[in-house]
């Protein structure tokens, strides 16, 4: 119809594009900038993030100290730059831990089914019924507060969600005729699961994982904030927030800048995840 004319079509096209790939691109750009910062932190940082300068404590932002200094005179800007290294390493490690357990577990549990599946899923239900940050706190409290344990704790608390996701997607793929065809051809379970099913669920996993990256960053910051994650004096955004909160009234920049850094990177991860979902999910794909 003429009514669905040229203009609205163009509008739709443009809008459709923004809601899909452009979101992901904005996300990638944000994440990319942080990644470059993390890699080249020593080049960008004007100061050593661990250098204590008791002559220059509590300084407000200036050309000398872009983001001001903290209670022992360390340059906040440099610390944020170095903190991004910590942020990336930790979130990536958490996600790798999550992936390496959830994906095989979800795939195999769903493909084999029966009691094995039932038992695995009930275990996951138990884990999922505990709020995951609380679970992480318990685990860290048991194992002792350090980075390794914090990564372990958050990683474990993420496993049930991804496992269930992988399982449910596998369940639907399992019923597809092409998997049945593989069964008729008497392929081994290993081949069917990892060679035929896995490639078809990768997109779902990628989307979930890119969202999890954001959550992992927040959760790690939270743990660090309450002193169970990265321990000071290491430059981590969560720990910086934690220190900064004591001086919030007088020197708010000690909190504001790490806060902004966390928010931005999480935003980047999420945009990337959402955009990716729009691109990969056929429900959003039209014409």
């Amino acid at each position, binding site marked *: 119809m003429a009514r669905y004319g040229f203009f609205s079509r163009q509008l739709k096209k443009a809008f459709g594009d923004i809601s899909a790939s452009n979101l992901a691109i904005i996300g990638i750009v944000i994440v990319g900038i942080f990644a470059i910062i993390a890699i080249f932190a020593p080049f960008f940082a004007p100061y050593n993030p661990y250098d204590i300068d008791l002559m220059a404590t509590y300084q407000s932002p200036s050309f000398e100290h872009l983001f001001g200094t903290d209670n022992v005179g360390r340059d906040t800007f440099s610390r944020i730059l170095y903190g991004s290294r910590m942020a990336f390493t930790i979130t990536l490690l958490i996600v790798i831990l999550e992936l390496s357990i959830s994906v095989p577990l979800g795939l195999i549990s769903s493909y084999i089914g029966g009691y094995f599946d039932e038992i695995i899923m009930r275990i996951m239900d138990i884990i999922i019924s505990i709020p995951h940050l609380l679970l992480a706190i318990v685990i860290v409290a048991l194992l002792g507060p350090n980075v390794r344990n914090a990564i372990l704790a958050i990683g474990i608390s993420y496993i049930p969600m991804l496992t269930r996701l992988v399982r449910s997607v596998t369940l639907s793929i399992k019923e*597809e*005729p*092409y998997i*049945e065809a593989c069964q008729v051809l*008497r392929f081994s379970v290993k081949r069917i699961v990892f060679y035929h099913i896995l490639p078809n669920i990768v997109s779902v996993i990628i989307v979930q994982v890119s969202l999890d990256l954001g959550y992992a960053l927040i959760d790690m910051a939270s743990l660090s904030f309450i002193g169970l994650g990265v321990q000071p004096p290491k430059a981590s955004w969560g720990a910086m927030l934690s220190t900064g909160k004591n001086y919030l009234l007088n020197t708010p920049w000690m909190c504001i800048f790490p806060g902004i850094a966390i928010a931005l990177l999480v935003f980047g991860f999420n945009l990337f995840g959402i955009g990716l979902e729009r691109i990969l999910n056929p429900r959003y794909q039209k014409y």
Partner: protein
Amino acid sequence: MFEEEIKLHNPVLKTINLKKYFLSEKSLLTRLLVGAKWVKAVDGINLEMYPEEVLALVGESGCGKTTLAKLILGLLTPTDGKIYIYGKSPREYGAQLATILQIVFQEGPASLNPRKRVGSLIKEVIKVHKVVDVDKIDEKANSILEMVDLGKEFKERFFHELSGGQAQRVVIARALALNPSILIADEPTSALDVSIQARILNLLMRLKKEFHLTMLFITHNLGIVRQISNRVAVMYLGKIVELGNTEEIFDYPRHPYTKALLSAVPIPDPTVKRGIIVLKGETPSPINRPSGCAFHPRCPFKKGICKNKEPELLNLNNNHYVACHFPMNYNSSKF
């Protein structure tokens, strides 16, 4: 004649009283609280297939024809009954069964993994079952594609780059890559247009001759059955109600259901005049199978006994089996 020929051979495939019951509720909790009924998807099938014949399995949706195929393929475990393939149970063959028994599924494109190229799908089969030496896999894949009239260039394609007919040919190629002797075709053309359908059917028949295949052809399209099959088995609610030579079934159907089914199919020729039997009501669900003859609530010729006593599948004459208390008679005139 064909029936004389088949007696000389032992059956290639034989099922004895094959049954598959499902529970209507899957969850344990609902089963305990509400209770569940048995869905008798396949209910006592005795079938024999002889070398190089095409046996058509006909029935409407929900009659259990696909379940039967899956039982034979070993994708489902039977509740009761036995299957023999060349006199041995499928379990005895293990993974080797794939080289004896294959299937062409209905949804051609859907039975190809969307993330794999045609070439790798075919080579995979050859590789896993070690059909040829490693260095000859490529050559073999080419010859298999050529067999279904597809060129080498198709090896690089994904399934969404294929038309329906091409995809179905790839599926056939993949099934025949292992050189099986029995092929089950489950509605291989029902998703295709008429103009493509004829090609696929002719291809299947050509390959049947070349490979000396024994074929179980599952379909709801009676037109196809007439063109390609030697014998026909008509299924209704999990049971075979009529079994016999194609020409005889089509010209002289003895079971009222077969007759109604045949008369229901429109013929693309307005000059053909014939009597049409319109069946009342719907096919009952296999959960609530009617008593006696399962067809009696819809049967236009039912009598008292039909409701109480289940008819057995009996040989009327000439290997024409019918499960009906009052099979149709054609003594007086041809219908």
